[in-house]
């Protein structure tokens, strides 16, 4: 193997893994505060389509990124309102958000499907994704706000008793997660495969969700996990092109199987389970209780 070949492979791994890092790190923060948002796929698609449409109409990357992020704020804001104020079931609401996002993005993008655009250099986002993981890791473990988020996720009643605003904290983490998902979507439709086509995220939102569990809610493990998932996918393509026969379907299942194994592993030990998953994940919070 020559050096150029290895650099080329690393290059492709970096480009294809970045959306998982963005969506995953956003969901990690959301889950740390005790909220499970299954709407990543929908948020990504809407982020992808709004960014794409704005770019086609204005030709301005800044506006398109801004509107893409705005779509994430609005949609995750609606999700936050439903699960926090109306106390709807988080799983059902998240699934609804995904289904809604798939339909909404298809409808919005219908007239724009197949419009050629100039893609953006992915390296800006790749660099930002690494910085982001580092910052989130620092924020969650070393800053007061980060510790408040974790306190809210571990025990919302105690956090409330200590004087922290549980609802407000969760609004912020949900919207952070939404923004990260829409950036992941934006990256896909503007940098990764510069185009808009219906359902083009092709399940990456679900892989990002699995990734958070795989990483046992730790930012640096999330980064490692994302690059394992992405790296294995690209390596198997390289091996195929070298003429090595591999069961491709198996590699498509790999992220989910790996996550299941981690789940079995962490739930086999009560202490380990307690240490990793936020205790209040997916438990509704009533302010006056």
């Amino acid at each position, binding site marked *: 193997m020559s050096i150029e070949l290895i650099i080329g492979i690393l290059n492709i791994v970096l480009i294809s893994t970045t959306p998982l890092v963005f969506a995953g790190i956003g969901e990690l923060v959301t889950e740390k505060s005790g909220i499970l948002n299954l709407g990543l796929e929908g948020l990504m698609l809407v982020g992808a389509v709004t960014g794409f449409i704005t770019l086609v109409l204005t030709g301005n990357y800044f506006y398109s990124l801004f509107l893409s992020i705005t779509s994430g704020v609005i949609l995750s804001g609606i999700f936050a309102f439903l699960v926090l104020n109306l106390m709807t079931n988080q799983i059902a609401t998240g699934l609804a958000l995904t289904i809604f996002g798939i339909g909404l993005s298809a409808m919005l993008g219908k007239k724009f*499907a197949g419009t050629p655009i100039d893609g953006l250099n992915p390296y800006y986002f790749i660099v930002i994704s690494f910085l982001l993981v580092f910052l989130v890791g620092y924020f969650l473990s070393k800053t007061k706000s980060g510790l408040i988020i974790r306190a809210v996720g571990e025990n919302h009643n105690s956090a409330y008793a200590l004087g922290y605003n549980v609802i407000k904290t969760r609004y912020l983490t949900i919207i952070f997660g939404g923004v990260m998902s829409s950036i992941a979507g934006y990256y896909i439709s503007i940098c*990764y495969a510069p185009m808009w*086509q219906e*359902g*083009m995220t092709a399940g990456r939102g679900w892989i990002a969700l699995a990734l958070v569990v795989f990483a046992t809610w730790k930012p640096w493990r999330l980064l490692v996990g994302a690059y394992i998932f992405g790296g294995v996918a690209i390596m198997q393509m390289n091996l*195929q*092109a070298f*003429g090595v026969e591999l069961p491709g379907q198996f590699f498509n299942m790999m992220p989910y199987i790996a996550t299941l194994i981690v789940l079995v592993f962490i739930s086999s030990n009560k202490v380990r389970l307690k240490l990793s998953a936020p205790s209040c994940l997916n438990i509704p919070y009533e302010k006056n209780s």
Partner: protein
Amino acid sequence: MKKQSLVLVVIAAIVVIAGIFFITNQNIQKDVSDDQKKIGFIYIGPPGDHGWTYMHDVGRQYLEKELGDSVSTTYIENVPENADAVRSIRKLAESGHDLIFTTSFNYMDQTLEVASEFPDVKFEHATGFKRADNVSTYSARFYEGRTVIGHIAGKMTETNTIGYIVSFPIPEVIRGINAFYLAASKVNPDVKLKIIWVYSWYDPGKEADAANTLINQGADIIVQHTDSYAPCQAAEKAGVLAFGQASNQEAFCPNAHMTAIEDIWGPYYAAKAQAVVDGTWSSEDTWHGFKDGMVEMSPYNEKLLSSDLIAEAKAIEEGIENGTIHSFEGPIYNQAGELVVKEGEVADDGMLASMMFYVQGIDGEVPQ
């Protein structure tokens, strides 16, 4: 109370929005007069994919234009290739459709299942091989186009390495690989194929990854049998050459796109719909190529191809059309070195329809 009124407002808003969407939805069924025939289509992807489904939708629009008021058409998009398809096909059959086109290979058993429940409704299944009294099958000889692009690729490659991105190991795809390789190796015996199976018809990100991987491994021409134009775009970005898939994709990769194999379904759809209107429809198997205009080549890119090469490509098209050239002319050997098509003969349709082996010279094995 406050919470309840909020819920009510949210529900009311959802109902209003849903109502607006419903009214503006173009697929809403129109009132049809009794003598108007209703034609339904089941699509595997969105019509905006600029590939497979897009070309079926172009065919549907052609049908509507040709037959005018004597027919109305409906389509259901993004129908998965599983038990769900039964529901979608049945929905069309129940709502009074006279003719239903199911446009993907894996709707085969689902189409037959619904067809047995509705003997008066006619069905047309694309690329399949199981028929019934009210089920026809039709497909296009895309492999004829693969012969043309194989010839071009064999002449154009400088690294003698061609990257080939494929979806699933089914006969249609294997046939395409073989036809391509036979034509390419005929003009350039040193040519090597690097094949990547992505196990998806449609995942732009993964298709782009596969294209970049192949380019990284030295391929200077990218061929695809998947539905998005991401590979062609990746080729454009990396400065290598590519062929479009299913429709003319030159707009997305003007400096890479040499030509594309186009699927032309319109005339067939119009003819079958006309047969239903006239009451002359019968179950049959159709497999058309260049000759009947079901497969066409997109305009050859004059910026990339020399006029001599374009002339050669056109001569091959013509030869296939008038029968002097066949994509699978003997002698053809399989990978084990066994003679499968004898000298002076051509592969028959039976062998082509069930082709699950690579011809000699292709590296690797067909995935099981």
